[in-house]
Structure formats: C-alpha cells, structure tokens
C-alpha cells in the first residue's frame, strides 16, 4: 500500500483558476462542465483563499467504510476509491463521511469520486501553479514539510 500515489493539495499555492475542474470533467465526460468535476475549488472568502477539494485516497477510507451497499471499492492498480454505480443507492453517506469534502454529487444524485484517471490525474497535469501534485503516500510529508519551511523561513516565497 505504501507505494500508492495520492493527490496532494498545497492549497496555499492555489490561485482559483479552476482549470482542474475543467480538465477533470472533460477527461471523464468529453465535455468541460465544472459542476460534474470530481475536484472542486471552494473560494473561502473569510480567509480569501481558494481551496481545491478532492479525494485524498485515505489509507482507511471512511466513505468506503460507511457505504451500506458495498458500492465503493479500492482499485488495486491505482489505489483509487471507485464506485460501482449499479450497486450504489445514492444515499449520500459517503459524501457526509469524507473529512476532506472530497466526495461530490453528480446531477443524478450519485457520488463523484476521483478515480485518479487510471494513474494519470489530469487535474495535476494541468494545474498551472503546482498546487496539485501526485505523490507517493509514504513520501507526501516531505513535500509538505518543505512547503511549510519555505513559507515560514524562506524569503521571497
């Protein structure tokens, strides 16, 4: 499991362009529609920040554990949480369970969860400012540490 790669969000770097939403929906549905994206950028006006919200591929996924229908499963190849739409009840418990706000809902009421684009997440590829990265779970803390160190100590960051 340690070799699994996850999407890491450096929200301080996000500028709120929402190109990630566009590429996500385009690569899944063939047309860009932010409302159908598996990643969503929330503009938090209280702190004037933009926060990309997406599945973090938790080691112990609460969404999967909460699902009463067994419709969520982990993809063995990528480690992504996948949806068996046929089994899904559309009950929304996964949406509520996610601590990252990483589960969305599509226009039919079914969950929208990041599938890591089969190992090549388009949101990461197309983020113009490096706010999203695709990292090994067991190494993710190193990038976070570097970011925090730069933010607090480095000049001109």
């Amino acid at each position: 499991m340690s070799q699994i790669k996850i999407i890491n969000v450096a929200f301080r770097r996000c500028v709120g362009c929402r190109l990630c939403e566009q590429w996500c929906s385009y690569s899944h549905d063939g047309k860009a529609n932010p409302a159908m994206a598996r990643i969503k950028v929330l503009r938090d006006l209280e702190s004037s920040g933009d926060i990309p919200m997406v599945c973090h591929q938790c080691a112990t996924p609460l969404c999967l554990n909460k699902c009463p229908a067994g419709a969520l499963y982990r993809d063995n190849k990528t480690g992504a949480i996948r949806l068996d739409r046929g089994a899904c009840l559309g009950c929304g418990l996964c949406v509520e369970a996610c601590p990252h706000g990483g589960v969305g809902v599509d226009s039919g009421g079914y969950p929208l969860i990041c599938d890591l684009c089969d190992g090549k997440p388009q949101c990461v590829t197309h983020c113009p400012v490096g706010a999203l990265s695709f990292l090994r779970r067991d190494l993710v803390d190193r990038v976070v540490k570097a970011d925090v160190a730069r933010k607090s100590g480095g000049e001109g960051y």
Partner: protein
Amino acid sequence: MTAEGLTGRLLRVDLSTGKIAVEAIPEDVARSFLGGRGLGAYYFDREIKPGIDPLGLQNKLIFSCGPLLGTMVPGGNKVCVTFKSPLTGTYSYSLCGGHWGPELKTAGYDALVVEGVSKYPVYLFIDDESVSICPADHIWGQLIPETDSALRGEIGDPFVKVACIGPAGERLNRMACITADCYREFGRGGAGAVMGAKKLKALVIRGSRGVIVKEPGKIASISEKMVKDLKRHVTVQARHSYGTPEMVEEINYLGFWSTRNFSTGQFNDAGKLSGKAMKKEIVQGDSSCFSCPVACGKRSAINSASYGRVELEGPEFETIGLLGANCGVSQWEYIVQAAKICDSYGMDTMSSGAVVAMIMEAFEKGRISEEQLDGLRPRFGDGSVMVELLQRIGDRKGIGDLLAEGLQASAGQLGISDLAMHVKGLPLATYDPRGCKGMALTYGTSPKGAHHMVSPTMGLELAGNRFSVEGKGLLVRKTQQHMALVDSLSLCSSMRFVLNLEGQLQILEAATGLVLSEEEALRIGDRIINLERMCNVRMGFDRRHDVLPRRFLEEPLPEGLSGGQVVEMDDLLNDYYSVMGWDERGIPTPEKLKTLDLAT
C-alpha cells in the same frame, strides 16, 4: 447559428411586474455581433431609447456572454454589462472577469436583461432553469463582502456566484460598481447605481449545464497550448509575479503617469509603488479569474497603525495610479485602505480617486475652502484625508454627498470644472494622454468617456513614436476593432499577448463552428464601434464631446521624457474621423453605416 459555444437564450427579468421569461436570440445576431460586448450593443440599440433617465424606469442592465465565456480557453471569463450611464449620460458597457460570468453561461444563458424597478429591495437567484426574485431587505445596506457571504449562507451553497452592489450603488452614487466574487468589478460608468435604482441588491447564480462547444478536443488542446505560451511570455510572467502594477515603473520612467491631478507625468515616489515594492510590502498570494493561469490578481494585507489589519485583493495598476500618484500619495497603508473602502462600498477606485485628486488641487489653489469641505484640508500627498473623503463619499455624508454625484457634476457645482479631468464625465485612466497620443484619441472617442481599454494603444506606440499625431487615427481604429472582437468573444485582453486575431478566429471556429475571415471579423468590430457611436449620436453626443480637458491641450507636461508635450486634439480627431468614414462632426455617414448593414 448552431447551439455550440452559445446557448442562444436570453433571460429577461422585469422587476416592475415580476415577469421572468426566456427568449431566443435571433440566429443571425451571433454572425453579426458575436456575443459579449457586441451582443450588448445590439440589444441596447433596440431597447434603450435615447432620452431616458439612466436612474429611471426605462434603463436596463444588459448582461451578455461571448462564445468563449466559460470554456476551457484561458481568459474566457469576461462578461459584459451594457447600460445608459448615470455618470456620463452616454452609452456605456463594462467588462468583469472572475467566475460570475462563466456561471451565467453555464446556467444556460447568453444574456440576462434586467428591466423595470422593484418596489422594495430584492435579489435575483438564477438556479439553472429556476429563476426567482427574492426579498433583500435584510441585506440592503450591507457592504460587498458581507452581502456576498450572507447570500451564500442563506442559499446554503458556498459555491454559488454572487454579483452585488454595496451601499454606494444603493445610494445612487454615480461611480458605483457591480461587484462579482467580492473583488471583480463591472467598474466604470456607474452600473451599480443603475442596479441600486432598480432596488436590485444582487444577482446570484448556480449553473450546472456546462458550456457546450463544437469541438471539445480541439478546445482542450488549444487551452493546453495557450497555458504553455502564457507561462513562457515575458510580460505575462511579470503580470504573474507582480500583477498589473508591473507597469508602474515603465510609465513613470517615460513620464506619462497621472500625477497630482495630471499636473505632471512623473511621480518622485513611484519606486515605492512599483510592482516589486508592492510584492515586498503587502502581497500575500495570487488570485486568478476562471480558466486563467496568469493569476494577475494579488491578495494583499497590511497592518496599519491607523486602520488595523486591512486585507483585500489588489490594488490594481489603475487604482495605484489614481489613488496613489494622482493624489500624490505613496504610502501603502492609505492606498490599501482607500481601495478597501471603495471595494467594500462598491465604488470605482478610478473615478473616486479622480474626484479626490480634483478636490486636492482645488483646495491647494484656494478655489474651495475648508468650510466647504466639512473642515477637511485635503492636500496632495495627504493619504489620511484621501481616506476620509472616500469614506464620506461612500456614506454620502457632508461634502461626500455632492462628490458622489461624480467628477463632472460636483466640479460644476463647486465652480472648478477646469480642474475636472474627464471626457464625457468619465475620469481619465492613469495614462497621461500628452505622453501617448493614441491614448488621447482613445479617451476622446471611446463610447463611454475616457476609458483606456477601448483601444489600449500604448504598447504599440512605445514601439513607434508615441508623441506623433500621424497614423494615430488608423492605429486607434484598428485597436478599437480588435478590442471590440476580444470583448465580444469574452476573452481577457491579456490573452492578446499570446493570441493574435488569427488564433482567436481558430478558437471561435472550434467553439462554435462559425468560420470568419480576418476581414469579416474586423468588419464585425467596425460594426460594433459604429453602432455604439450611433447610440451616442442619438443621445446628442458628437465632436464637441470628444475633446479632452484644456489642461491636456494647453499645458505642456512640465518635466521628464514626455516634457513639453500637449495633445493636438483637432488633428487627431480629423485624422480618426476620416479613417472611420465619419463626417467632421464625428457622425458616421449614411454610406458608412450602409456598408456595415446598420440603420442610419
């Protein structure tokens, strides 16, 4: 026109009757006017009669989207509002970036026309097909950030997009903006006052349809390439690092930066206000509009002894020009606080700054007294008085009540019209026209008064002879045509760094299937400019109103690299009118209008 790229749907809301209807936009309109600014011109011409009161029952707010709005194309986020301006009495339009325009498009509309006047404060909630007019008594009077936050809370969805007015618009301040996403404005011309007169506090949108384009794959690959090109472009890199204030140093070096109410073109403290200085002193992070990797918006904050902690997005280059150099103010705490007041009340930083600069000059020259100014003693360089004046303008308190009527009207009342730097009532932007003659013509002939983005020729002129008159008519006409197209496609003007007309037309084709030659496209640009001009002509505007204030014609810039320059207005206008096919009064000839398929 096929359905792709455009929805072909117009949402019409009558606040007097509460009637809400969806209309089809005639199919041939897109081919003649594209969308955005062009579409606004089309509807203004048909629906807004020349003699109406801009703050009365018959004015309308025409919001319009272009074919690239809300697509993956970088910079495809500029939505247009067209209206009769309460500040100038002219035709006016204003463009706004951010996320609100794309949300309108993705809710399924190319245009939104708001007409009539509500009896009590309301806001409009557009939730795809479901449109409702909701009471807004409880938020009437609130500042912009509070309004935005309250509405997102009330609807229970932090992702909805809000465009609203603040107390300035409610109090019919003629410099009032409509503000989207808290810090993106339909800034100039007083659209916020029109909205206030309609008792319309906000327009809230939630869209879920997406924008359908003809060739999604092609649009995606164009988008990918544009992002790469933008990241490589030197000017764009400067914009990304420092925002629009990256321009401060150059314009000041060249000696045509609006300084102390345009009394000179060089501000000695410019170094303190440069993009680099701003980044070092106050910038915390970057902020972007929809689909744009440039992120020229800057999130700033300052801890001020006088005002506490002040946070905002900006200030922009023009704001620094008109609240900074033009008022002689060089301390960030005052500029940031001044911009914060303008942003919170919802009033244009540029027009408001111009009013303060005029008052400062008038007071220094003894033309108005302390008594007339509620005991204030505004002098150039005094940032705290600038902030106080803006606060009173926002509150319409004391002298602020008069100044909220705008530069031209208040100058008239105070007997200082010679100190009011405007064209048709709209204060000049921060480029002193004496140092860049194409900009003089731009200010003079823009349909909405002295606005710079109608034909920003400065970049092109710096590569040639910026002081010469020769050729400027043609340069301005061409730039106006190109900008009319960019504005009608709904592209941000910064995209022109990496995208020429040929590139724009390729994207248009991929988005809509509409194939246009460059010649045909420029004809559309010409059509839009001439239609806008005719709307003004019908309202009584002509050559007499295209002339700049006497200061620019008679007082040479006193120093620096633009020293000695004045504006040769007559020569410039003669040249431009002849290039445009307009008569000597500046009125398009019937022959000219015929070639553009416009009514005479």
